């Protein structure tokens, strides 16, 4: 061999280097792709990218195997006339034919009843476009995957602090001294989180992980606090109680920046009980949170307008206003609420010892109080007070689905937001920091449609398909108070379902409840497998027919880059491109990759040609929108407005002349403006020259305290990021929730819930956080099903799109049910035995593995490693389909019939968040005579037309030679 020191890799073949943005998960790191003779040689982190700073993860570095995966779809496919759904027998058709079919069908629906078209998408990062398409079409039946992912985390915190984790904000680990992570194994802000956890630990910070399982990040936690699933709310409330009891809260912060001192009417007899006392006062018309509320001044012992200069209000006490109204500060109500939540009470529920709970509270409170950070940054608050410094309390948090994916998750997350508020850590150094466009008003401005009239033939939807209700008037219900969306989002069943309930869309459409639809378009969502609850039954629904022989969901279009289980049920399959083959805009209108220091968005620019006839889904939507003559896609004369998606990105404005488009950077004719400005024909080039991103670094004085930072808020309004420049007061007490509660109790004029839902709404729309057992536990026999069953996502397959990836599947080839040895022994089986996992609604056979890194009442597995035989370009003999298993089969999408209804979603009653982790099971050994393979099993399908023929036994990838050899 030649001495390696004498050669350069770049001399082998023709080398090109291009920048784009990764899409192996939702993290969206900057990547540098090296090509050799047109084949991908190397994908590395872009060292000049602020998001990932040059690092890359296991998935990102395996992008080559995604690009050249044999699971790729390459041709539009139409189900053969004699084939049943699920058989996956297709014929190749042209794109022209595919568009004709869609145009014919959809134009009829738009002319007659647009809501019979439903569009649901997976973790797609293009909600700005897909949501707009749905609105333009006129259908309310649109959502992305958020409802079954982590909407509780988004809603729980946004309705409390005006921002949340991940793309919305996060822990300031560079300055934090104590970091507490709840329910997170891996996250979709994965590389930034890893970079900063490492720095944090090296800086000597203490990292505590609260999680039933010790994997992922928890492995390097300084302290692991194993907790029973679904009980985090109890732990948080007990910590809150201890912090209040000892006076470890940041009083000044609470007074000035939260509604803690604001006086709440406290007279259960009154109609306005639980509402803030509001007085006549001038405020700007249309403002979102008028400051016409009261504090009780300590000095003069009288009520005064909030933020009256010199007023020092009580946080505790009860008072009577001059008009006789009995009132209490919100903080007093919180204190009353947590009185019963002692550490001993929480120990019984959570399994965390009371002493540990108290110690956690002390560590948080004392660190926040005694390790204050003071930065020499001048800023001015919304009330005109000038500050010479920004201060911070260095305790930070992060949380994910462990908190979110429970039916009591919304209130648990409210409790977390309140704990963060009590410690005085919101948008301050060392605590939680927002990412633009957050903070936003509580709740943000967009509202869903609120009556059946919003949906009209040949019309744009009146309202946003997804929005942020702040009162019952914003619900999308009919005159009887019943749902108008196919997933029943924004109904009284799940009023604040701000991300929709994709997990119930198929079941509801199949049942025709609230109505039948005609066409369901699924993009990048594996609803016939790991993205559905109750998978086996949902597969049945997709293939189920009426008496007249027509499918109950008459037309199903699936767009995906890969041969997923869902494609088998499609009538029409559209082959999407990979991320290396397309343009994308990771937009401020969706979930940008903003940094704590300021707004940032980014793009993808193709580095290789699309395979076969693959077409980016964005191009499909632009073409379809044009053919259907949706107003945003055509000129006034009905002719084509945009050549293609890149042209759309440059020239589309949210409304004519708004200056707001999908990309915030290099706007204005010559690229001299940002956030707002005329279209710039050279915008793509400018992104390409700048590492595919645009980052506006805010002046330091605008980087903190943004909820109340006058300069920042005025800047944000001037640049079209927010409608208001008013302070965003933290909602320790949620009047928004109280409005729904009052309606449920019949004390509020206007809309009221149907009778069957009154109690449910009144209970769960509590303006203060409370702990209740999960809905599932109240409805099933928990003695019969004593264990909690969870899934986690492994770092090397986070988002689980890559079993077709030859390298990644060697890391996770199949999954086990992970069981504490004591639990195994108690149930009569041993390590590596085949066992059954059974819930009240289903059972799965799998292999178990003993682990000491799980609390004994919990069993868990890696999510979505198990696959159906023959899919994802894998041989039917692949481990994924034989030893691997899918836990979803035992998780129902609906609760057992209960007072609230026959078919209530297995979800949080506030937000509609899928309660995956409420699952209860029993486990027992499989019979000796049973097959040593997973169950249930499904019919093996053949390769699709256009898919590569079976690959050989060996794969020896060498860029520049691979295609030649394979070809």
């Amino acid at each position, binding site marked *: 061999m030649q001495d390696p020191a004498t050669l350069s890799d770049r001399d082998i073949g023709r080398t090109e280097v291009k920048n784009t943005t990764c899409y192996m998960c939702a993290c969206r790191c900057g990547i540098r792709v090296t090509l050799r003779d047109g084949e991908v040689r190397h994908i590395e982190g872009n060292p000049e990218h602020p998001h990932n700073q040059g690092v890359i993860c296991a998935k990102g570095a395996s992008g080559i195997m995604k690009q050249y995966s044999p699971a790729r779809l390459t041709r539009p496919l139409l189900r053969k006339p004699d084939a049943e759904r699920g058989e996956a027998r297709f014929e190749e058709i042209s794109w022209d034919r595919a568009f004709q079919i869609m145009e014919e069908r959809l134009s009829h629906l738009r002319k007659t009843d647009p809501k019979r078209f439903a569009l649901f998408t997976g973790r797609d990062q293009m909600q700005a476009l897909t949501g707009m398409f749905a609105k333009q079409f006129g259908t309310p039946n649109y959502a992305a995957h958020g409802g079954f992912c982590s909407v509780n985390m988004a809603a729980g915190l946004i309705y409390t602090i005006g921002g949340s984790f991940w793309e919305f904000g996060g822990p300031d680990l560079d300055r934090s001294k104590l970091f507490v992570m709840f329910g997170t194994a891996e996250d979709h802000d994965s590389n930034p989180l890893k970079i900063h956890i490492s720095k944090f630990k090296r800086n000597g910070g203490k990292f505590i992980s609260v999680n039933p399982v010790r994997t992922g990040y928890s492995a390097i936690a300084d302290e692991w606090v194993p907790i029973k699933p679904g009980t985090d709310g109890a732990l948080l409330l007990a910590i809150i109680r201890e912090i209040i009891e000892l006076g470890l809260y940041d009083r000044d912060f609470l007074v000035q920046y939260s509604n803690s001192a604001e006086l709440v009417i406290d007279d259960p007899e009154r109609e306005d009980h639980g509402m803030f006392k509001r007085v006549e006062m001038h405020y700007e018309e249309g403002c979102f949170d008028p400051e016409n509320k009261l504090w009780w001044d300590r000095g003069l012992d009288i009520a005064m307008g909030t933020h009256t200069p010199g007023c020092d209000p009580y946080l505790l006490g009860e008072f009577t206003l001059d008009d006789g109204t009995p009132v209490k500060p919100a903080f007093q109500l919180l204190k009353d609420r947590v009185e019963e939540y002692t550490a001993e009470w929480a120990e019984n529920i959570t399994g965390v010892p009371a002493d540990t709970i108290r110690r956690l509270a002390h560590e948080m409170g004392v660190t926040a109080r005694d390790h204050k950070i003071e930065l020499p940054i001048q800023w001015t608050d919304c009330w005109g007070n000038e500050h010479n410094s920004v201060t911070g309390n260095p305790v930070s948090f992060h949380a994910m689905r462990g908190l979110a994916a429970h039916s009591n998750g919304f209130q648990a997350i409210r409790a977390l937001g309140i704990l963060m508020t009590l410690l005085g850590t919101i948008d301050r150094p060392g605590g939680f920091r927002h990412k633009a466009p957050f903070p936003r008003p509580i709740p943000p401005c967009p509202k869903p449609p609120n009556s059946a009239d919003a949906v009209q033939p040949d019309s744009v939807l009146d309202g946003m398909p997804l929005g942020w209700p702040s009162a019952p008037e914003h619900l999308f219900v009919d005159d009887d108070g019943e749902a108008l969306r196919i997933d029943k989002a924004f109904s009284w069943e799940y009023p604040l379902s701000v991300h929709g309930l994709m997990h119930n869309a198929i079941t509801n459409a199949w049942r025709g409840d609230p109505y039948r639809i005609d066409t369901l378009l699924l993009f990048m969502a594996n609803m016939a497998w790991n993205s559905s609850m109750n998978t086996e039954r949902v597969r049945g629904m997709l293939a189920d027919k009426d008496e007249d022989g027509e499918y109950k969901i008459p037309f199903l279009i699936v767009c995906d880059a890969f041969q997923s289980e869902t494609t088998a049920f499609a009538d029409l399959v559209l082959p999407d491109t990979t991320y290396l083959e397309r343009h994308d805009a990771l937009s401020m209108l969706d979930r940008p990759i903003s940094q704590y220091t300021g707004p940032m968005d980014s793009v993808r620019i193709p580095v290789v040609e699309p395979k076969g006839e693959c077409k980016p889904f964005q191009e499909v939507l632009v073409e379809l929108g044009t053919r259907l003559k949706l107003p945003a896609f055509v000129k006034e004369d009905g002719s084509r407005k945009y050549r293609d998606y890149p042209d759309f990105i440059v020239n589309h404005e949210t409304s004519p002349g708004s200056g707001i488009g999908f990309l915030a950077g290099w706007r204005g004719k010559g690229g001299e403006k940002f956030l707002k400005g005329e279209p710039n024909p050279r915008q793509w080039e400018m992104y390409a020259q700048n590492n595919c991103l645009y980052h506006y670094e805010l002046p330091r004085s605008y980087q903190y305290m943004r909820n109340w930072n006058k300069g920042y808020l005025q800047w944000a309004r001037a640049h079209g990021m927010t409608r208001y420049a008013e302070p965003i007061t933290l909602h320790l007490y949620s009047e928004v929730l109280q409005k729904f509660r009052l309606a449920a109790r019949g004390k509020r004029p206007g809309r009221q819930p149907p009778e069957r839902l009154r109690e449910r709404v009144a209970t769960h729309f509590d303006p203060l956080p409370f702990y209740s057992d999960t809905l599932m536990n109240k409805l099933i026999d928990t003695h019969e099903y004593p264990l909690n069953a969870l899934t986690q996502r492994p770092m090397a397959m986070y988002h689980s799109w890559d079993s077709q990836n030859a390298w990644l599947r060697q890391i996770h*080839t199949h999954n086990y049910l992970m069981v504490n040895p004591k639990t195994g022994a108690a149930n009569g089986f041993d390590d590596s035995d085949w066992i059954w996992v059974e819930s009240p609604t289903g059972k799965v056979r799998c292999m178990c593995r003993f682990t000491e890194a799980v609390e004994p009442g919990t069993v868990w597995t890696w999510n979505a490693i198990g696959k159906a035989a023959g899919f994802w370009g894998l041989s039917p003999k692949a481990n994924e389909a034989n030893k691997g298993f899918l836990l979803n089969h035992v998780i129902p999408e609906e609760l057992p019939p209960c007072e609230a209804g026959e078919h209530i979603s297995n979800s949080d009653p506030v937000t509609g968040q899928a309660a995956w982790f409420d699952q209860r099971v029993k486990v027992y050994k499989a019979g000796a005579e049973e097959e040593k393979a997973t169950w249930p099993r499904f019919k093996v399908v053949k390769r699709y037309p256009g898919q590569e023929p079976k690959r050989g036994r060996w794969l*020896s990838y060498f860029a520049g030679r691979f295609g030649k050899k394979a070809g």
Partner: protein
Amino acid sequence: MTQLALVIDLNVCVGCHACVTSCKEWNTSGWAGPMSDFHPYDADPTGTFFNRVQTYEVGEFPNTETVHFPKSCLHCEEPPCVPVCPTGASYKREDNGVVLVDYDKCIGCKYCSWACPYGMRELDEKQKVMKKCTLCIDRITDQSLPETERKPACVLACPTSARLFGDVHDPDSEVSVAIREQGGYQLMPEWGTAPANHYLPRRKTRIRIHEDELVRADNPLDKEAIELPDEQGETLDDVAW
């Protein structure tokens, strides 16, 4: 003499496998490639990797530690794999101490893998030659790369920067300082192989709170109205003289 090596910080390794696949990605198309995979899309896939992460559990619940442990060739200063090689295919570079295999000379006899006490060598079942970590020799010696990128792919990739790279013979290098100051250790030094790679141990941070820190001099609760009983009844003041 220069001895290049990796120092792996177990205190921050989260077991994400970035090092595993970035290694495979770089090396399969590089000087040491290809790195073959058997049954890539079939049952029991298995392939050549120069670097793997193993995960161990230590202790019993609830006192469990989960340890992620990346393993690759340790580039021993006294590599037992070199003298046993009958063809001279296994060799240790004099300029930087990296242990390499010349595939042209390797006959796949596996003596080296038997000699390696760490199990770090893998026979490429397709090419029938022995393969192992090269510390990305074709990156670290490539003068056409910017100096910041003349590092092994795993080091550049690692999101927690758990992998340090440098000359362990240079007392001022980042790796030597880390070994010296943070308790860096070798694997099985008793074998006399003098592995160049080192590991940094787990370190725990604790917070100690003294009783008196919980009693605040400036307790904000003191600012709240103290509720007195409405009727005090008789007091000492009424009855004592």
